[in-house]
C-alpha cells in the first residue's frame, strides 16, 4: 500500500552498523524490515534515508522475500530475489537474479523484475547472455462473488 | 717504685678530668648543630641524643690523644713548678726515666685510640647516617608545625600550615613532586595521622589540588570536600657511604687515593698520640725563673701544628700529590726525630 511509505520502519537483525555521516545503516543476518504492510526478509540489508526522507533500501539474501498488501483489496504481493534495490524517491523496486513476483494468482519469473510501487506495475527482463527465460503466468481474475 | 705509681696515678686523674671537659665541650657544640637540624626537621627530634652518641664516638680518637698529651704535659709542668723535678734529678733520675712510666700510662690508651680510629669511628659514622635516615622517614608524622615550611625526608613533599588550632592546621599548603609532575594542594584544614596498621596519612578538608607538568597547560585540577593521601615512608636512596664511613678493611683492599689517604689518616691518630705523649716530656720543661707559660704555648702550638700537618698530608695523598705507598710515614719519622732532638737538648741542658 502506498500508505506504507509514511509508516514507521522497523528493522530486526542480528547485527547492524549505523553510519550517521551517510545516514546509512547496514544490517546483516536474519534481517527483517517492516514498514506498514511491507515486510522484507534478507540476509543483508542496507537502508539509507536522504534529507527528504526517501528511503533507499538494498540487500541480498538467499533469497530475499518481500510481502506487501495491495492497495484497496486484501490481495498481497509476494516476491523473492537473490538481490534487490529499492529507490524510495522513484518508488522503483528492482529484483535481481532468480526474481519472481506473485500477485494474487499472477506469477512472473525472470532474472530481473522492476516493480513500480506507485502504480503497482512490474516489468520483467531476462538477462540476454544467460538466455534466461521470462515466464509469466497470468491468471484471470475471478469476478468477485456477487 | 713509688715514683712510677704516683706519676701514673696523677696523670690518670688529670686525664680523666681533661677527658670529661673535652667531651662536654664537643657535646655542647654538637648539640647546637643537631638541635638546629631538628628544629628545621632535617633530623628527627627523637634521634638527637643517639646522633650525639655517634658524634662522640667519631671525635673520641682525637679527644683521647689530646687528653693524653694534655695530662702528661700538665703533670710534668706541675712537677717542675713545685720543684719536685729537681728532687728527682738530685736522686739520680734523669729525663729518660720518665719515658717508661709515660709509656706505661700511654700505651693502653693508644691501643684504645687505634681500635677507635680504625674500627669504631667508621662504624659509628655509617650507623649514624643509616639511623638518621631511618628515624627521619619514620618521623614525618609529627613534622608539620604551624607557620613553618617543612620538607619530607625524601624531599618530594613540602608542607606549610598557616596556624594550628586543636591539633589540625588551617590554610594548608602542600607541594608534591612525583617523577616530573608537580602537584600543589591547598586546603582549609589539614593534618597528618597514623592509621591502624601503621601507615601514615595526610588528611585535607575543603581544598583544591593542581597537578601538571610545569611549563605546560595540561593541568588536572581536583576540588574536594575532604581527601586523604597516604604518605609512603621516604625510602630515599641509600647514599653511598663517604670514605670516612667505609670500613678499614675496605680501605686496605681498595687502591683509590682517597681511600689510601683515609687509611693513612686513621693510622696517624694513634701513632701521633704516642709520639706526642713522648714529646710532652721534654716540652714540659718549665724554668720557674724563666718565661711563665711560654712552654705551654709552644706545646699546644706543636700539637696542633702536627695534627694539621696530618690533615694536609691526607689532602695531598688523596690528590695523589704524594704517592700512596709513602703515606704519612715521613711525617711521623720527622716528628719522632724532633722528639728525640728535644730529649737530647733537654738532657744536655740538664747535664751541664
Amino acid at each position, binding site marked *: 500500500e502506498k500508505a506504507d511509505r509514511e509508516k514507521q520502519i522497523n528493522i530486526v537483525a542480528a547485527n547492524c552498523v549505523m553510519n550517521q555521516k551517510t545516514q546509512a545503516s547496514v544490517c546483516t543476518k536474519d534481517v527483517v524490515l517492516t514498514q506498514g504492510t511491507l515486510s522484507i526478509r534478507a540476509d543483508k540489508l542496507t537502508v539509507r534515508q536522504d534529507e527528504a526522507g526517501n528511503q533507499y533500501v538494498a540487500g541480498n539474501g538467499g533469497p530475499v522475500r518481500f510481502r506487501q498488501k495491495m492497495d484497496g483489496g486484501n490481495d498481497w504481493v509476494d516476491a523473492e530475489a537473490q538481490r534487490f534495490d529499492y529507490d524510495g524517491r522513484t518508488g522503483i523496486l528492482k529484483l535481481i537474479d532468480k526474481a519472481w513476483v506473485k500477485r494474487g494468482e499472477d506469477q512472473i519469473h525472470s532474472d530481473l523484475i522492476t516493480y513500480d510501487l506507485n502504480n503497482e506495475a512490474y516489468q520483467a527482463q531476462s538477462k540476454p547472455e544467460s538466455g534466461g527465460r521470462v515466464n509469466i503466468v497470468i491468471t484471470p481474475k475471478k469476478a468477485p462473488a456477487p | 717504685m713509688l715514683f712510677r705509681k704516683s706519676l701514673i696515678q696523677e696523670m690518670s686523674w688529670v686525664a680523666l678530668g681533661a677527658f670529661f671537659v673535652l667531651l662536654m665541650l664537643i657535646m655542647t657544640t654538637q*648539640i*647546637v648543630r643537631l638541635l638546629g637540624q631538628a628544629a628545621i626537621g632535617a633530623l628527627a627530634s627523637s634521634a638527637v641524643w643517639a646522633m650525639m652518641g655517634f658524634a662522640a664516638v667519631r*671525635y673520641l680518637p682525637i679527644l683521647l690523644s689530646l687528653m693524653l698529651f694534655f695530662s702528661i704535659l700538665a703533670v710534668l709542668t706541675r712537677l717542675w713548678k713545685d720543684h719536685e723535678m729537681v728532687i728527682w734529678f738530685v736522686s739520680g733520675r734523669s729525663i729518660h726515666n720518665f719515658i717508661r712510666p709515660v709509656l706505661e700510662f700511654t700505651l693502653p690508651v693508644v691501643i684504645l685510640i687505634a681500635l677507635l680510629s680504625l674500627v669504631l669511628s667508621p662504624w659509628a659514622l655509617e650507623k649514624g647516617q643509616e639511623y638518621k635516615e631511618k628515624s627521619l622517614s619514620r618521623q614525618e608524622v609529627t613534622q608539620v608545625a604551624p607557620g613553618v*615550611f617543612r620538607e619530607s625526608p625524601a624531599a618530594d613533599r613540602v608542607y606549610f600550615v598557616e596556624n594550628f588550632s586543636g591539633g589540625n592546621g588551617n590554610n594548608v599548603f602542600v607541594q608534591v613532586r612525583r617523577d616530573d609532575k608537580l602537584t600543589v594542594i591547598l586546603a582549609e584544614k589539614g593534618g597528618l595521622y597514623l592509621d591502624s596498621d601503621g601507615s601514615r596519612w595526610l588528611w585535607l578538608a575543603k581544598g*583544591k589540588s593542581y597537578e601538571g607538568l610545569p611549563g605546560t597547560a595540561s593541568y588536572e585540577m581536583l576540588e574536594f570536600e575532604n581527601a586523604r593521601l597516604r604518605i609512603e615512608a621516604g625510602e630515599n636512596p641509600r647514599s653511598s657511604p663517604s670514605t670516612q664511613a667505609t670500613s678499614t678493611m675496605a680501605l686496605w683492599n681498595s687502591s683509590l687515593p682517597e681511600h689510601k689517604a683515609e687509611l693513612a689518616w686513621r693510622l696517624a691518630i694513634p701513632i701521633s698520640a704516642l709520639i706526642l705523649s713522648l714529646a710532652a716530656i721534654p716540652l714540659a720543661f718549665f724554668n720557674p725563673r724563666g718565661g711563665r707559660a711560654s712552654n705551654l704555648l709552644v706545646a699546644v702550638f706543636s700539637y696542633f701544628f702536627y695534627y694539621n700537618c696530618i690533615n694536609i698530608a691526607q*689532602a695531598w695523598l688523596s690528590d695523589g700529590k704524594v704517592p700512596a705507598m709513602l703515606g704519612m710515614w715521613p711525617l711521623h719519622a720527622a716528628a719522632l726525630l724532633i722528639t728525640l732532638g728535644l730529649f737530647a737538648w733537654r738532657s744536655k741542658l740538664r747535664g751541664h
Partner: protein
Amino acid sequence: MSLLSRYLMRELSLFILFALIGLLGLYTFFDLIAELTDLGVGGYRLSDALIYVALRAPANAYELLPIAVLIGGIFGLSHLSGSSELTVIRASGVSLKRLLLWLCLIGAFYGVITLLLGEYIAPAGKRMANQHRLAATQSMLVGDFRSGVWIKDGKQIVNIGEMLPDLTVVNARIYEFGKTLTLDRVIEGHNGRFQSKGNWTLQKATITQFLPEHAGVVLTKPAVFNWQTSISPAMLAVLLVEPAQMSATSLLSYIDHLKRNKQKTSRYELALWGKLFYPLACLSMVLIALPFAQTQKRSSNAGVRVFIGIACGLVFHFANQIVVYLGDLYNWPPPIVVAIPTLLFLSAAGLMLWRQERR
C-alpha cells in the same frame, strides 16, 4: 681602673686568651677535618679549605668565648690564689664587693667583645666564608631544604631553587593565590635578579594562569617578567644562615617579615633574645670562676676544684643551648626561656661566694 684592677685584668686576660687559643685551635682542627671530605668538589683546593676555616674562626670564637672566659678565669684566679696574690689583694683592704665589681668589669669587657663578635665580625666572617667556599666549589647557596628556600609573602608562596653568591636567584617558582584558597597563577622563572625595592625581574619566565570556574588554563612565556614582591636579597641571605649566627639587626627585620605573613617566629625570636643575653654569659662565667678559684695552694683537691668549676661552666653553656631548643619546641615565651639559665647560675655563684665569705 686602679693599678690593682688593671693588673687583675691583664693577668686574667692572659689566661683567657690562652684558653681561647687552645679551644679555637681545637675547633679549627675539627672544621678542617670536616672540610677535607669536600676536597676536590668542583676544584675545591686545600688552600680554599684553609681560607674557609680561617674565615669561620670568628664564628667559633663567638661560640667559645664564654667557655674560654670561664676556663681562663678559673686558671687565672687559682693561679693568683695559688701564689697567694689573691689573699694579698684581699688583705690590702679590697672588699669582696670591690673585687666582684672588678670581675664584673672584666666580665662586661668580654661581654662587649662577644657582642661585637656576634653582631658584626662573626656573621660577616661566616658570609665571606660561605661566599668563598661557594666560589671555590662553584656550588650554589641552598637553604635548609633540598627543594631550596621557601618564603611566604602575602598572597604568594615562593620557592627559590638556588641563590648564587651574587644574590641572583635560580629556578624561582611563585604560587599566587586568589581569595578562597584558589591558585590564580604559577610563575616560574629560570633566573631572577633584584631590581629595586619590591620588584625583581625574572628571565625566561613561564606563567600558568588558571581561569575561574575551570574555564581553562592560559600559558604565557614572557622573556622577562616583572615580579612584585617584598622579598629582598638580604632576606634570602638571612634564610641561608642558621638563626644563631644571624646578626640581631637581620633577625629583627626577618621576624617582622614573618609576623606580617602569619608565620611562626619563635625560632628566630629565641635566637634574638639568646643573642642579647649571650654577653651576660661572660659576666656570669667570671663570677662562677671566683668561688672555684679561692683555694689554698697546698690543698690536695686544688685540681678537683678547678675541674668542677670548668664542668659547671660547661653545664651552664650546655643548658643554655638545650633551653633554647626546648623553648622553640614547646613555644615558651622567648625572653624567659633565655634568661632562666643565666640568672640561675648567677644566683648559684653568688650563693657560693656568700657562703665562702661567711665561713
